[in-house]
């Protein structure tokens, strides 16, 4: 490769970067948004002393028995008021006295309500004189790496890699096409591959900044762990970014209007936002969907990042997600180059 080739590729990439950085909205979505999200989630899911669960009871005796447990906050109410409080979520459980027996009313699909059921029953049984045959003590541990914030940061990173690559490339390319700039460029001696390559290269530069900002923040503020090799983590990010850039190229390869490309991008990204495990584990989806979910590039990217950061897994043991990412890079890129509309 001679100096000239390099110089036009360099100029294209630099121009691309300048255009990106001069777009204030882009800066917000790429840098500020993921941090805000991390902060919001960090606050919402911070590790707190176990919650005090609100419950209701129909008799003063029951209220007294329940109030003896520090994990519960009991209020006396009649059955009608209790039903309303349950329906509005003001209490998680209503204990109804029925002669010598007690009936618990709660929603068993709500994990907090199930917890309230266990604690309330224990409190009532103990108040009635139950003695445990086995003595039990507690020691509390808070291990970093198993908190929700540790789980969600790799998810946010994956989501950010996907979003910035897809939006960044998709909009810029379609905008250039709509403004006939693309046509002007190919009328010049510019090598076409360099135009496409400049998008991937400028993406990698942005990627470095994005990843450092987001992970640095997560490390400093939340103490999110990095158990795997940082070099390997960087490689995973580069591969993921190339993959999503290739998808962005493909999505933008024919569209003539911003509206058209927005629609297409949402169709492509929406399933991944929901199913790829950004905010919760994809194992919650039915088994029949699992092969599909595991084959999505965002699932692969997030799995690889979590494997590296949380479990310290080496690349050699993550061949499946890496192979999936690679396939999602090679195939869409080849197709995009083939069908790309230059005018």
């Amino acid at each position, binding site marked *: 490769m001679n100096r000239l080739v390099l110089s036009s590729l360099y100029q294209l990439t630099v121009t691309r970067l300048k255009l990106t950085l001069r777009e204030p909205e882009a800066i917000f979505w790429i840098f500020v948004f993921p941090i805000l999200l991390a902060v919001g989630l960090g606050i919402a899911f911070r590790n707190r002393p176990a919650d005090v669960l609100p419950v209701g009871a129909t008799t003063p005796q029951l209220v007294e028995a329940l109030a003896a447990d520090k994990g519960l906050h009991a209020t006396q109410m009649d059955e009608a008021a209790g039903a309303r409080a349950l329906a509005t979520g003001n209490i998680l459980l209503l204990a109804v006295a029925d002669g010598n027996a007690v009936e618990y009313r709660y929603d068993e699909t709500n994990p907090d309500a199930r917890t309230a059921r266990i604690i309330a029953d224990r409190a009532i049984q103990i108040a009635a004189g139950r003695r445990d045959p086995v003595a039990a003590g507690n020691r509390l541990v808070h291990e970093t790496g198993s908190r929700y914030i540790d789980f969600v940061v790799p998810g946010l990173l994956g989501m950010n890699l996907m979003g910035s690559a897809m939006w960044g490339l998709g909009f810029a390319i379609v905008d250039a096409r709509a*403004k*006939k700039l693309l046509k002007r460029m190919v009328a*010049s001696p510019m090598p076409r591959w360099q135009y496409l390559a400049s998008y991937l290269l400028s993406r990698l530069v942005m990627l470095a900044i994005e990843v450092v900002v987001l992970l640095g923040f997560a490390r400093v503020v939340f103490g999110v762990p990095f158990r795997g090799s940082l070099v390997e983590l960087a490689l995973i990010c580069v591969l993921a970014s190339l993959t999503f850039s290739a998808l962005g190229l493909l999505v933008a390869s024919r569209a003539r209007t911003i509206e058209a490309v927005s629609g297409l991008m949402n169709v492509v990204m929406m399933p991944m936002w929901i199913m790829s495990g950004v905010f919760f584990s994809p194992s919650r989806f039915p088994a029949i969907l699992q092969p599909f979910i595991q084959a999505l590039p965002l699932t692969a990217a997030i799995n690889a990042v979590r494997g590296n950061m949380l479990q310290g897994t080496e690349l050699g043991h993550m061949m499946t997600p890496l192979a999936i990412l690679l396939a999602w890079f090679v195939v869409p890129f080849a197709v995009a180059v083939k069908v790309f509309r230059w005018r």
Partner: protein
Amino acid sequence: MVRNRLDEDAFGTRTDAETAAVRIRGLHKAFGDVRAVDGIDLDVKPGECFGLLGPNGAGKTTTIEICEGLTAPDAGTVELLGRNWLGHGDELRQLIGIQLQETQFPDKITVEEMLRLFRSFYRRGITVDEAVGRAQLEEKRRARVGGLSGGQKQRLAMATALVGDPELLFLDEPTTGLDPQARRHLWDLVERLKQAGRTIILTTHYMDEAEQLCDRVAIMDHGHVIALGTPKELIATVGGEDIVEFAVGEKETAGPHSTASASADFAQGRLSTPPLAKDASGSAQDERAKEIDLQALKAIPGVQSHRVEEALHQLSVSELHTAVPRIFAALEEQGLHLSEFRTHSATLEDVFVRMTGRNLRDE
């Protein structure tokens, strides 16, 4: 140009100074049912400034974009500087400079950055400084495109066409939408390129622009070249150097109205001015009263031809100073009252009107 004087290049193509800079043969291009270019043959000589004129949709842009290698023709061949697009695309792109009709550069990039980018695509060319200077954008060098005026944007587009120091320039409507001063500015630029011996092909809607800048023009309509020659030659075909336009009307109800039958009447050699009121009550007698004796007008020395459109009569006239008083006299004699009268020197516009019966900008 010196670079044209290679006698045989590696591809065995002849590229001496005698070769046409652009040679177009049997060019056809259709978009669905629309025959945008329908059989065009043209030769543009080296160093010539060649104009493509025509109304909207005439096929100018399509022709020029086929020449630029952006559109593949359905049939026909294009040779630029002795090379064709099939084998020599990369080489040709290095040699030509292009301004497209509707490119919008990104708002957030500066003039200098845009030129540096385009310069990097060319093996040889002028420096960014020179390009800025040629387009007279020195003051706007560091300004972003979004802050440029229309004329400055056009000059930036010109500058991107010039950075590769091209032999051959294609300019598609370089002055459309510009104010008169900005247009004149661009004309200066084109003049200087002509003096530097560049071959230029430009399209325009403005007849004065073509007359001012172009050595030769081709007038296009519906994908055909309907007239080809120097502006002087073409204007001469109108038959007179000046055009007299007039309309007649009654004193009490002045103001001409359009009529669809005017040209049919014209074909019969006698012509009636249009009815002043559109309602059917206009009797045959009234009509008669407004008739013009065309033979009398045509008999005036210097009057070459007559046509009428929308109640406006046009005479092409030589010897304007002697013909005009006689035209007045003839109309007076026929008891006709002039509601409008003006003259202008014949232009390419008149050539177009004469050949097609339509105005260039009516479409």
